[in-house]
Every structure is written in C-alpha cells, then in structure tokens.
C-alpha cells in the first residue's frame, strides 16, 4: 500500500497530474476572486474615506488633498488596483485607509489569534458533539431518542441566531451571572498583566492543539492494535496523559490566571456556536452512517460475530467519517474570517468585526486582505479535501485517474 501511495504522488502519475491541475486551477480562481472582491468593494456607492474628510468643515482643502494622496486615493481606480495587487503579491498588505498609517498586517495580527481561538474551539466541539450525535442517530434509527435529538438539533440549527445568542446572554450572564456578558477579557485581571491577551491565546491555542493532536493520533494509532483491551488501555492512557499534560502545563504556567479569564469568556460563545452548529455535522454523519450501514462489509462484519459497538465504531463510523472530515476541512477556512454576528453579539473583537468595520468604512486594503485570507484558506481547504478524497477513497482515486 505504501508503495502505491508513493507512486500516486509522483509528478508523472495520474494523481500527480491531477494535483498539479487542481493547484493551477486554484491559483487562477484566487486571482479571479481577488479581482472580483476589489471590484465589489470599489462598486460600493460613494467613497466613504473621501466623504469623511470632505464633511469636516474644519479641514482645509489642502488637508483633504494630502490625506487622499497619502492613501493613494488620488490615483485612478485601475492604477490603485495595479499598485495594490503588486504590493499584495510581494507580501505587503499595505496600510489601512481608515486607521492610517497602521499596516494591515498589524491589524490582522491583532485580530487573528482571537478569532482563531474562538472559532477553532467552537468548531472542535461542533464536530465532536455532531459526530457522536450523528452516530447515535444512525444506530438508534426510529427510536424516541433519535426523534428528540433530531428535533432539538434541527431546531437549534434553524433558530434565529442573533436572538438565540442574546437570550443565552440574558439567561447565563445576566440572570444567572455564571459567565461574563461580553468581551474576551476582564480589565481587572489584565491591568498589570506582563503579557498580552493575544500572546496568551496563542499559547492556549497551541496547547489545545497539542493535546487534541496527541489524543487523536494516539487513539487512531491504537486502532491498529488487535486486542480490544490494548486498544482501550492505550486510548485511556492517551486521554490521561494528554489531559494530565495539559493540566500540568497550565498549573505550572505563570499565565494561568490570564488563560482562565479568556477561557471563562469563551464558554458562552463556544457553547452557543456548538448548540447552533452541531446539528449540521450530526445530519451529515447520520446520512453517511446510514449509507455505510447498507454496505456489504458491515454485513460481513456482523456475520463475523463482531460486537455491535465494534461494527459501529470500527467499521461503519470510520467510513462514515469521510464526508465529515471533508466538511471539517472546508469549515476550517471559515475560522479565520470569524463570524460577524457572533463577534458582534458577544463583543469579541476579532476578524469578523474588523471585516465588517472595514467594509462599512470602505477600507479596501483591510477588507481585501481579510477576504483574501479567507479565500486562500477556503481554496486550500478544497484542495486538501480533494487530495484527501483521492488518498482515502480508492473509488475517487480511480475516477480522478480516469
């Protein structure tokens, strides 16, 4: 098998050609996306930056001219586009028009860790809960539990999200006082902090990633063990070591109190995002599981006398994981642009709020950079999904070769 995979990715192989072709398509698509985004932003009626300047009677005309020239707005649109494109593809994202002269890269660097932290944790919980629930639904077909979970999940999936978010704040923050009403940190904790909130979030993110990866990979690796007791032992060990290491790391970390503050602020938005988002994953998993359960290899597994749990988890669920994995890879792309509504409701100053503010103020360099990052990640997500499919599913590989 390993030899086959190696050959599959060589340059002259069909899969290799397929990968190169997809990559070229991706680059072209990004260029089109980039240009269309710029045109769309330029097409917004009026010029917000110029108007803000022009509507200030205290500004003499020369100050307005100077301010426009500094931002390059005195040049024709096509020239602006050409100059921006050149600088973008040489790694210079330019300076913000509305927060001149702050570099766009600085603004994004400030906001990105917060958004990635919030939405990656929420995504993780959505997929964990959604996958387990989907598995349960497929296996407990036509039971009362299936109906209850489906109704609850779909209801939450279709609820008017801003209203639901505010109701959750009202209940858990205002009435019960369990969590903060908004924001991502409490000033009292951070006023003399020796570290920035972003730095703490980066540490939190990587420590979570490490634990998740450790437990996930160990669990995956344990599935190769033949004896159930060994598998169980390794899995439990992975959880104990992973969580223990995580606890040990933070218990001895001087930034623990700051991480706790961020974590407390994460509870409500992550919970709400998980509640409204898990049903999508649940339904994908359920459908996939139901399809898989019709397959011959599941019947064979049962005929071999394997336990129901073994058939469900080792045979059906693993295969059903494929579309879920693809969906996860694609969803990762949405992590960096955040959620404008979520960030607004919970007062979470991330990429979503930055994107909204930049579009409203027609701050094209910031808006375009934010859109481009999302676009690049989305394209990479699709690209990875295509490759993943090609590698994981022989049928797709054959089709792609054909």
């Amino acid at each position, binding site marked *: 098998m390993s030899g086959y995979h190696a050959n599959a990715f060589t340059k002259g192989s069909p899969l290799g050609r397929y990968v190169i072709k997809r990559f070229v398509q991706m680059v072209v698509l990004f260029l089109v996306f980039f240009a269309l985004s710029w045109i769309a932003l330029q097409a917004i*009626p*009026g*010029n917000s930056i110029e*108007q803000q300047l*022009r509507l*200030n*009677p*205290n*500004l*003499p005309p*020369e*100050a307005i001219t*100077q*301010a426009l020239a*500094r931002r390059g707005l005195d040049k024709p649109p096509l020239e602006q586009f050409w100059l921006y494109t050149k600088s973008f593809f040489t790694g210079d994202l330019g300076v913000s028009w509305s*927060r*001149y*002269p*702050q570099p766009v890269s600085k603004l994004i660097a*400030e*906001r990105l860790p917060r958004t990635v932290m919030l939405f990656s944790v929420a995504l993780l919980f959505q997929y964990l809960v959604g996958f387990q629930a989907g598995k349960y639904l497929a296996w407990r077909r036509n039971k009362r539990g299936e109906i209850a979970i489906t109704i609850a999940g779909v209801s939450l999936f279709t609820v008017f999200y801003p209203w639901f978010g505010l109701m959750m704040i009202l209940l858990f*923050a*205002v009435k019960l006082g369990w969590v903060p*009403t*908004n*924001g*991502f*940190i409490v*000033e009292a904790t*951070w*006023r003399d*902090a*020796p*570290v*920035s*909130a972003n*730095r703490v979030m*980066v*540490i939190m993110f*990587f*420590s979570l*990633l*490490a*634990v998740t*990866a*450790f437990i996930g*990979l160990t669990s995956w*690796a*344990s599935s*190769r*063990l*033949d004896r159930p007791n*060994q598998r169980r032992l390794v899995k439990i060990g992975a959880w104990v070591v992973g969580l223990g*290491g995580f606890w040990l*790391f933070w218990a001895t970390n*001087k930034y623990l109190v700051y991480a706790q503050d961020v974590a407390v602020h994460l509870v409500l938005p992550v919970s709400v995002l998980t509640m409204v988002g898990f049903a999508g994953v649940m339904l994908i998993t359920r459908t996939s599981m139901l399809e898989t359960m019709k397959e011959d290899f599941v019947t064979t597994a049962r005929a071999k006398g394997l336990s129901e749990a073994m058939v469900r988890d080792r045979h059906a669920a693993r295969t059903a994981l494929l579309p879920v994995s693809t969906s996860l890879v694609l969803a990762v792309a949405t992590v960096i642009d955040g959620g404008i509504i979520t960030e*607004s409701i919970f*007062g979470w*100053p991330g990429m979503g*709020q930055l994107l909204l503010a930049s579009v409203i103020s027609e701050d094209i360099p910031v808006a375009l950079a934010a859109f481009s990052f999302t676009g690049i990640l989305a394209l990479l997500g699709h690209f990875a999904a295509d490759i993943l499919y090609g590698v994981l599913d022989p049928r797709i590989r054959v089709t792609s070769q054909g």
Partner: protein
Amino acid sequence: MRASSKFPWRFVALLAVLAMIAAACGGSTSDTTAAPGDDVTETTAGTDTPDTTMTDDTTPPSAETFEYKIAVIEDFTTDNYWTYLDTDNSVYNGYLLGGQAAAVYTQVAPSFTLAPAMAVDAVPPVGAADGDNWVITVPLREGMTWSDGEAIDANDVAFTFNTVKDLGLGGNWLGSIPLAADDDPATADADESAVGLLSVEATDDYTVVYTFNGAPGLPLWQYGAAQFPVMPEHFWGPIVASSADAETFEASSGAGAPTAGGFTFTSREEGAFARLSAAPYYDTGAKTVVYENGAVEYTSPAGVTETYGGTPEGEVISEDVVGPFASEVVFTVTGGQDQAVLALTEGEVDFWLTPLGVQRGFLDRILAESDLEVITNPNSGFRYLSFNTRKFPMSDTGFRQAMACMIDKEFMANNVLQGVAISLDTTVPPANAFWHNPSIEAICAGLSQEERVGAAIQILKDAGWTWDVDPEWNADNLDVIPKGEGLKLNGEAIGDLTVLAPGPGYDPLRATYSLFIEDWAQDLGIPLSAEPTGFNVIVEKVFGPTDWDMYILGWGTGVFPDYVVDFFESSGDSAEGGFNTPGFKNAEFDALAAEFKQATELADAQALIFQMEEIIATEVPYVVLFTTPVLEAFRNNLSFPFTAGLGGIQQWNGSQASVRSSQ
C-alpha cells in the same frame, strides 16, 4: 506484536514535545503598553448658557481616591496624540487622548468661554503689523509643568508648530494651525493670498511670537492658532528627529508621553480596555466658577482669582474644583450598544460615553436601575433641507420660502417624531447662546396647517407663480383639496423634482421628514417625490456635480460659528470643492462673511453672524429642520461639575479630571 511494532509511539511523543515547546515559546514578554502622562482641559468654540447640576463638594482633592469605568462602543486606534489629531481623529481617541495637550488659550466648560491656559493675558493679544506680516506676542505663565515635572513653556509651542509644518502633518492639525500657503511655484494653484501662520517662535522660555502673513481674524487667531494643542518637546523632540517622515512619526507609540492634565495614559489592550491613571497636575486644587452670562471666575491653586469673559452675572452654572479625584479611569470597549447597556445595568461600568447619545429604546432598561441616572442635552448640530439654488425652480426665493412655510416643524417634532427631535430654526442653535440670534423666527412659525397653506400660496403668488388649478384648503377634510396643478413661473412649468433623504434604515427621522415634505409640496402643486438614498450616495451627489434638486442631511457643528461662512459663502461652492452645497450666492452675505473673517472682537463677530443668519432665514438656501437631544447615562454615585450644556458631558471628553464619587 505485529501491530505493536507499527504503533507510532515515537511520532506521538515527538509531536507532544514539539507542541509543548511551541506553547512554552509563547514567551513572557509584555505586549501591553505603559506610560505616564496627563491632561489639560481644552476644547472648541462658542458660548452657551445651560442650567446644571453641580457637585456640592468643592474641596480640593484629598487622599479619597476611587476608580470608575467608562463604556465605549468603539475601540481606540492610537495612543499617539499627533496621530489622533491627524489621521485617527475619532471621538473615541479623543476621549482617551484629548486631555493630554496643553494650550495657550482654551475654552471653559460648559460655557465655551475663551480663557487663558498657558497665556498670561485674559484675552488673546491682537498684535500689530510688521511690514507685510502681522505679529502677535503672547507672554506665558511660569510654573506650569508637564506630568513628569518638566516646564510647559514657549519652546513647546514653537516645537508643536514646527513639527506640524516640517513633517507636513494634516487632518485637524491644519484646522488648528492655519499654515500660510508657501511661495513654491509648484503650489501656484493654492490661494497664497489667504491669511495663514508663517511661524511660531519662542523668543524666550515664556514668550511666544506668532507671525501671520496678514491680519488674522477670530477664526484664525483667537479660535484657531491661539488654541492649538501644545505637545512636550522634551519627549517628542527625539522621536521627531529620528522620524524620516510623517508616516513613521505617526506610527510611533505615544506610550510614556507626559501630559498636561489630571490623567496619564497607562495601558491599552486592543479591543478590550484602556486605562488612564491620575498624575501630577499643576492645576490641582484650582477652582473654576462659571456664571450664567458665560463669565468665568478662576482661582488658582495658589489662591489668586482672575475673571474671564466679562463680569460674572446671574446664576452659577458650574462650580468645579480641579482634581483628579479618581485614581484610575478605565475605558471598557463593549463593541456594541446592547453590550454597553448590559455593562451599565449589570454594574460593570459606571458611565457610557458616546457621541451619539443613548438611544431612547434603551431608556427604560437603564432607568429601571435605581442607581443609574440619565441626562439630556441639546446636540451641537442640525438636520436640514437644502435646495439646489443653481436650478429652477429652487433658484427662486419665493419657491423656497413657500416650501419652508409649508414645513410645520413643531408638528413634526411634537406629533410625529414625539420628542426624539427638537425643532430648530437656525444653523446656530439656541443652546449656543452667545452666537444664536434669538430674533430669527422661521417662516410661517406658529401658524396652523390651514394658515400655512394660505400663507404659502400667497408667497408664491407674490413671487409671480400661477396655477392651472389653484390649491385650496378644505375645512371639512382638513386637507388641501384640490391640490395645486400646473404650477408655473412666468409660464415656465416645474419638472419632476426629488428630495434625496437617507432611508429609514439609516435615519428614520430624516426619512419620515422627507415623506411629509413630499406631501406638503404636492399640496401646493409641486411635483416632488422623496427618494430614500444611501448616505454616501447623497454626499457624493451634492458635493460633486450639481444635478440634484433637494436633499436632507445633517451637520455636526462646533460652537464657534465660522461654519456659517463655510456653508453659504459663494466662493465655497461645493461644485468647486467647498461646503456651500446649495450654491447660494448673495453679495450681501459674502461681504458680511469677509468682514467676519477679519473681525477681532467677539461682539463684532457676533453682530455679523446675527446678520448672516437673518439673510439665511430670509433667502432659505437651507431649511433648518431639527436637532436631536444627547442622552447620557451614568451611575449616580458619580458627580460631574455640570450635567447641562451643549453636547452634554461627552462634549468635554467626560471631564475626567473633575469627576468625583460620593462613595
């Protein structure tokens, strides 16, 4: 055994170690900024006579310290005062940094009375001609210090001017420092004849000399250069010297900058909070009493009393002992109005500082809390209907007057908009008492709808307009039946007209108003239709080409009314880059405007503004419609030196150095 041998223990272990290293490499260096600094009270324009709630405790600050928290819905974008006044001129940055600078002259809250800060003389000296130039020498006080103990002196004034000039700073710096146009042939299109500031020099530590290229009037001198913010040279000088250009300079941090007020900027966490801490303040313990007539009685910490703005008369409207009393002021960035209200009602903040005012929809929730208080004050701005006087029929004064006559502002304010709007007749509102002309009354003010229709018809007839079908008031239906048809002036009929107004999503008040104006115009036979239009689109239309009929927008204005000149002077036609959107041309107004710009005495300038306002009220290039009140909410353990005044507390960035707590 086979399976065990394949188990990737080493890979898992390596990954775990790498992840832990990555996490640990998060490092311990601080990204938060910390700095000493402090502030001075300085503001902008005008005179005002509001009533007020005063603090009953006028003792100097003692060891009783407290901290209070302010909610803001937008984040701060800079900690550099220079950048704030140039490219990042948001009100929120003003709340945080606005009190940092010193000034030679300033205005006293809440009356906007012009008073000396660094200067010795009670009023700015007028100066004298020196060849082609005009030179004003201002002696400065000794003993004023920045928060780090360095003297505030003439070198700081000259340094600030030279930095703005040499680095080419823009934005509101140029509004504060009216630079003279240079003689460079490359800038031949600039108006080099305009009066501007050539230089500011320190002849000694406590004498500063301003040189203009002509005699400056009030807008350029007393309400311009005399009040520009002064920055500490000993701190900013080295930064300026090492900055290659304005961009580099303005990208530098202002952390550590000493300030000339009660608070120093301490730290900021982007998107979350910013802090000001109490700092040594040269004016601590000073007492300022403001009287109803705008006169100010100032008693220095040393006990010397001076009076500015005339002889004190009438009631005391503000009595303020300078602190700071709070040890810390913490700004919490809530990100939205809902969150700000929640933070306020949940006790997370003590005051919501917002230029927009608290929305009325939130009032019930706020007032339900017994420890919260809401105050309301008039806004320093107005919404208006503008006519394009370059086009027929808006070019006809009778037409404009008839339209103005039909607009029942009291009815709109009281019956339709129900207290959300305050009817207004002049571009200088009554709350701006010194500059407001009380004798001006709107056309057809106080008339009933029936009387308005009759008066408007008469105005049009007097101006030579005729109808195919005359409009008539129908007393049974309380409406105009029939409506006018075939309205003509000297045989020329009116084509379809539109009034552009922001849609209800952007501003329901103006959107509603536009529909009523449409209806009233149609009563007279004017084929006018209201067109909800995006704000940006309206601005682009009316500040560019002149192909529009009428529009409704608003202005936020300062207190010194030089904007009246900007809005209606014929040389400022918006088609040529100015602010005169109606394209109003009136020789008498232009002459008064020119005289106003040269006036050096407040009384003269006031008389000129009164006359200009009368012309505007008669010629009606604008129909001033209404203003909105500013509502502000705070916890009632806080007390401010005043709670009534044009623009409210936010007009003065929250008067941080004077805020006290009863707890």
